[in-house]
């Protein structure tokens, strides 16, 4: 699904080093689907006890203090967090969970490398913003205030009322993919001839890199 621009209230998740084990606990990784992870994301912080893949939603006890359970953030599409968000395990299920909760944008000072790519491969925009700006966004979403942020993918700008516009970095090819919702495999297969040509000379130079022939 393309992402061009978005205005949404922000869910402030005030934690650093949020790892993908917490975002999507182990018991949900046995699903072989790409969808349906929304109710499981952040389980240890959202619910009173751990469930499993077949636990009915009605049997879950949501923790009122968790931001994800607060009605004022119910329609939020932008998640705000601290440094090193999405560190740890490569599990893409973490991104599927955040996406299935309805988020399209995550703002943090830094991200785990694998997680960052996983986001972009699922139409979710990870925005790296300097620590000072992130701090200001947290300050503006404290207490009962609800902060609204606008994101424009084509100009790579983020705007908040009362603050100067902020620019974020995004590789042009990744920006393009977000804007048109393009399949990255199709994009690479446009270069199939170049891949084949490379492969031929690579095999001549390093024949031992090919096959599992000795079995």
């Amino acid at each position, binding site marked *: 699904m393309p992402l061009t621009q978005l205005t949404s209230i922000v869910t402030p998740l005030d*934690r*650093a080093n949020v*790892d993908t*084990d*917490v975002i999507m*606990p*182990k*018991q949900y*990784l*046995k*699903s*072989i*689907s*790409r969808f349906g992870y929304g109710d499981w994301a952040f389980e*240890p912080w959202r619910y009173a006890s*751990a469930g499993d*893949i077949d636990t009915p939603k009605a049997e879950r006890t949501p923790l009122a203090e968790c931001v994800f359970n607060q009605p004022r953030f119910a329609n939020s599409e932008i998640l705000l967090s*601290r*440094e*090193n968000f999405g*560190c740890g*395990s*490569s*599990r*893409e299920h973490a*991104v599927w969970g955040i996406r299935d909760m309805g988020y399209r944008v995550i703002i943090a000072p*830094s*991200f*785990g*490398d*694998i*997680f960052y*790519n*996983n986001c972009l*491969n699922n139409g979710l925009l990870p925005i790296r913003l300097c620590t000072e700006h992130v701090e200001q966004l947290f300050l503006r979403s404290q207490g009962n205030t609800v902060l609204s942020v606008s994101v424009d993918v084509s100009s790579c700008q983020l705007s908040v009322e009362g603050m100067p516009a902020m620019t974020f970095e995004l*590789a*042009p*090819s*990744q920006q393009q993919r977000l804007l048109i919702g393009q*399949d*990255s*495999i199709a994009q*690479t*297969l446009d*270069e*199939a001839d*170049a*891949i084949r040509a*490379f*492969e031929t000379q*690579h095999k001549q130079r*390093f*024949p*031992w*890199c090919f*096959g*599992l*022939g*000795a*079995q």
Partner: protein
Amino acid sequence: MLSQTPQTLYDKLWQRHLVSAGSDGQDLIYIDRHIVHEVTSAQAFEGLRHANRRPWRSDSVLATPDHQVPTDNRSAGISGIIDPIARIQVTTLDDNCREFGITQFDINDKRQGIVHVVSPEQGATLPGMTLVCGDSHTSTHGAFATLAQGIGTSEVEHVLATQCLRQRKSKRMRIWVEGELATGVTAKDLILHIIAQVGSAGATGFAVEYAGPAIRALSMEGRMTLCNMSIEMGARCGMVAFDDTTADYLQGRPFAPTGELWQQAIDDWYSLQSDSDAVFDEEYRLDARSVAPQISWGTKPDQVIAINDVVPLAEHGNSAVQRQEWQRALAYMGLQGGESINNLSIDQVFIGSCTNGRIEDIRDVARMVEGHQVAPSVQRAMVVPGSGLVKAQAEAEGLDKIIRAAGFEWRDPGCSMCNAMNPDRLPSQARCASTSNRNFEGRQGDGGRTHLVSPAMAAAAAIAGFFVDIRDWPRLC
């Protein structure tokens, strides 16, 4: 004239595999080896089918199930997986490998095991290769002068379909280790110490090369332990240059080249070094002699201290964010700031994982526990070999008998309690001496308290019933 510019090992590996340079820095690199397990592949194969695509090169792929497999009752095969949903995931891997002509060591194969143990021991991981797997600990294979990276499931599908990965080249970091590790101090202690220095995000965006006399002195098993945990400081890959140790390990492995091809390969592999005048974007230097046995106290892999140090006080954190984080970690771990971990009682011991489930690790454990008994206060102590072949080797050496006689469970190969996807789980609030790689909240079981240590430290803790400084232990490895 590009080749005359001094290059790091990472630069050389990158250049060898560059198919095309992207105008915005997003390059296309060719992937030689793709390792696949059950948890991160089903959706990728489904994606291929959905788009009517086939794998670009099935013979580049090696598969084995490891996360969901039980570590007992393995004679029952697939029906030994109690959870029906987990069973479907493993049979889905079987079906996908059959459909696409992929070599798999299935649950019944004696070569089955943890992907990062199996591929090197088969010689499927070779120097100079690019290697990927849908698992963050793929950095392990960098021990072979390989560019090895963990990827997500969409990228697994991308590599299956195109044999390529599109990515930005990382910055280069070198970690240079002088001197020699003291007796009783292992590669695990060294990497835990390094992570504590660099920080859990300190190497994000970097490719790390470990170098220096202390690294050269490590065995391949030790180098794999080191590279394995690169991701715990944010680096997607860690690597060690090729040398005689690498060659000796690989010669005669089932998928390694033989005869004339072996000679040709060896000649090439010796070039897999950073040039002496190569420039790194960042460099750390440390002395191995200053490294004591290490132990994690918190819930992040950089929350680590020497065994003879005390747990930090939350108020000593360097920022409000860190102070809050330390406070949460101490509460979760049931610890007080200022407390010593030496002598802290434990409930369980887990020895295994892609970090420390190799034969050398099991030899260390056997040496430590021979003639001793697991303390009665320890509810459970288990040793889980990293692969069927590691298990067989240990049994051929009689190590299983020593380990069982000491009161440990001797299990079947798999990821087991490192990530607790199979039934091996840590109960809430149970304190565990673990040789695995992550101490995240709930990683080994909801509410479980993980302390990351070396195999020798875990073995000694099992016998004592509490953490000890193994430099004071009578049987040092």
